[in-house]
Structures are given as C-alpha cells and as structure tokens.
C-alpha cells in the first residue's frame, strides 16, 4: 500500500493555504507533517480524508481497496474528540466501533488498552481532557483501518499516555499500517519521513 500526493494545493475561503505539496508514504512508514501554526497541517490531513476538496493536484492510493475512498479506509483523529458527554465511556466507543464497522469485543479490548476499563460506566462528561483523548484514540484500535491520520495526537496526553500512543503507532506500523501525523514535537519514532509546510526557503 502506498499513498502519494502530487502537487496538492489547498484553498480555504479564497486564500491559498499551501501549494504544490507532494509526498509519498508506503505501508509501515510514518510521515510527520511539521510547520508553524496556520501552515496548513490540519488542512492537509482533512484533504487526504476527503473533508476538504482538493483545489489542484492529485491523491493516489495504490494497493488499497479500490471500492472505497481514502477516507473510508482511514482513521482521522482530529482536534475534537467526537464524544458525547451524556453517553458513558463504553457507549461512546461502542457506537463508533459499530458505526465504523467493528465488533463489540474489539471495543472492550480497546478500552482496556488505553487504560480506561475502570471508567467504562462513567459518562464521558466526567472525563479529563487527557482521558477523553485516550478514549478517542481507542477508536483507532477497536476498528482496523490501514491508514491513521493524526492531528497533534500527543496534545493533552501525559508522559505515560504519550509513551503508550507511541507504542500503538509502532505496532500499527509494524502491522503494515501507514501513519500521517501533524505534529509540533517529536513522536519518538525512528526513521520517520518529514514534510515541512510553508516558508521552505527560510
């Protein structure tokens, strides 16, 4: 599996966010997208999953399921956690697992992996920001999808949870997954590709 972008240009509200961005990521590889605020890191991820229309350029996925769009084969972890405060931790994850086509047993396993098993019956409203983030990460494990698109995944996580996420990303890569991550800091993963957005001449 290989995901490539050729001369992608993104426009939002008539303003050009970035232009002529190209990259190529193969199975088992991680692409770290860096750049200052507003350089278009989030926009690039949203273009890839199909939430923003491509202004110019192309996205090519080789070796995926040709009947599905890229977004349908990818997990997107955005800034927001997509959790409903009125539902319990279990109910939240079970819903996304069911909606994204996974099995209930995997949801239970995923809750365990992110260390929220004890809180399963609590409403999501009671969780701290870090706990909410972990619950949202559990979605990535509960349903298998080959591509992970992570927007500042380490935000709000404490050191232990960051280590755990790094391990999860490593495991995903080892299984032949493919990761695109917008990030400020290091993800602690060796051999990652880097894509720097904006002001490349400076």
């Amino acid at each position, binding site marked *: 599996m290989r995901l490539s972008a050729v001369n992608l240009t993104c426009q*939002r509200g008539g303003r050009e966010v970035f232009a002529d961005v190209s990259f190529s990521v193969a199975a088992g590889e991680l692409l770290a997208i860096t750049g200052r605020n507003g350089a278009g890191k989030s926009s690039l991820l*949203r273009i890839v*999953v*199909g*939430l*923003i*229309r491509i202004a110019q350029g192309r996205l090519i996925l080789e070796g995926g399921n040709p009947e*599905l769009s890229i*977004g*349908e084969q*990818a997990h*997107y972890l*955005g*800034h*927001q*956690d*997509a*959790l*409903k*405060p*009125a*539902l319990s931790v279990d*109910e939240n994850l*079970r*819903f*996304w697992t*069911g*909606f*994204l*086509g996974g099995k*209930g047993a995997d949801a239970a396993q995923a809750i365990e992996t992110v260390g929220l098993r004890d809180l399963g019956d609590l409403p999501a409203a009671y969780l701290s920001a870090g706990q909410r983030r972990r619950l949202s990460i559990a979605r990535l494990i509960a349903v298998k999808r080959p591509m992970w698109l992570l927007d500042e995944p380490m935000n709000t996580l404490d050191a232990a949870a960051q280590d755990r996420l790094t391990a999860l990303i490593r495991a995903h890569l080892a299984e032949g997954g493919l990761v695109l991550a917008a990030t400020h800091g290091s993800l602690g993963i060796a051999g990652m590709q880097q894509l720097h957005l904006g002001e490349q001449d400076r």
Partner: protein
Amino acid sequence: MTPLGALLIRDMRISVRVGGGALIGVLFFLVVVALMPFAIGPNLLLLKRIGPAILWLAALLASLLALDRLFAADHDDGSLDLLLMGRAPLELVVATKALAHWLTTGLPLVIAAPVIGLLLNLDAADDAALVLTLLVGTPALTFIGMVGAAIAVALRRGGLLLAVLVLPLTVPVLIFGVAAAQSAFAGAAPFGTAFTILCALTLASLVVGPFAAAAALRQEIE
C-alpha cells in the same frame, strides 16, 4: 450491529438522557396550544372549529424548533467528520439521524395530540383524524426541516435561521394536513383527497430531504 442501527440507538439514547430534550418538543406543543384560547377566547364552538389548525401549527413549530441541534451538535464536537468518513452512504446516515429525531420528538407529539385535543373540545372522531394526519405529516416536517438544519449547521444563530428557511417550505404539508384533519368533521373537502396528497408529500420529502441534507453537509463541512 449495523452502522445505521448503532447510529439510531445512539441518537435516541442521547435525546432521552439529561440535556437531550426529547420531551421539550411536547412541552412546547402543549404550551402553544394552551396559550391559544387566551388570545382567541374560550368559546368552545370556535375552538372546536379551529382546533385542528391550532394543533397543526403548534406541531409544526414544535418539530422545527427542536431541529436546530440535529447536525450542529455533531458538528461542534467533531462527530460529523467521522460520520462523513463512514462507509454508510451519507444520505442514509442523515436519514437515520432524522428518523431518530422523529421517533423522540415527532412521535411524542402524535401521541400527545389527542389529550391536548381535549383542551380544544375535539371529539373522538376529530381526534382520530388529527392523529392520523399528524402521524403521516410530522415525518415530512422533520425531513424537510433536516435540510435547513444541514444548511445552518455551522452558523451561530442557526435555530432562528432554520425556522426562516424551512417554514415556507412546509406550506404544502400544513395546507393538506389541516385540510385532511378538518374535513373529518366540517365536510369542507373530502378526507381522502387531502390525506392522499399529504401522504404523497411525505413520501416525496423522505426522498428529497436526505439527498439535499447530505449535499448541504458536504458543502458546509469544509
């Protein structure tokens, strides 16, 4: 569990939990109907004559005012992005959300209508006709209103805009819903004709609504 089944259960669950507002629509319906006689006067014959019209107007307002959070809530917490990325067609996703909304907001109105009809001196036959028209007509209101909810999804004053956008579109439903409900006792127009047209309007909205709403969401999400 199928993706759409999971979505239906989740949406219904949220609306009956604290902060969900499943019953606020019925409460609004009741308050509006109860206020009418203060403006019109307590003349029972008059109330009986215009009762179906009052109940239909109240049901229209109640089902539309509750709609503004239909997509906005999912937009605000990022759920909408993921709903758009699911493998289920977006048209079916929005139709499922509208169905869940109707089951928790529209159906209670239909169930409450005969009791509230008592306040306006409707008798059993009027009540039956009214319930039937509401049962058939309120899904049309939800599915037409859903388009407005999708268009106003990212706007701050979405609720008001929704009403302004959608109320004119509901004119045909209101005309034939009230006509069918009133013809049951006034004999103005045959019940069958108006009721058949009402059914046709509902079927049309069930088809058009999801496509329009899905298209609007795809535009708005950017």
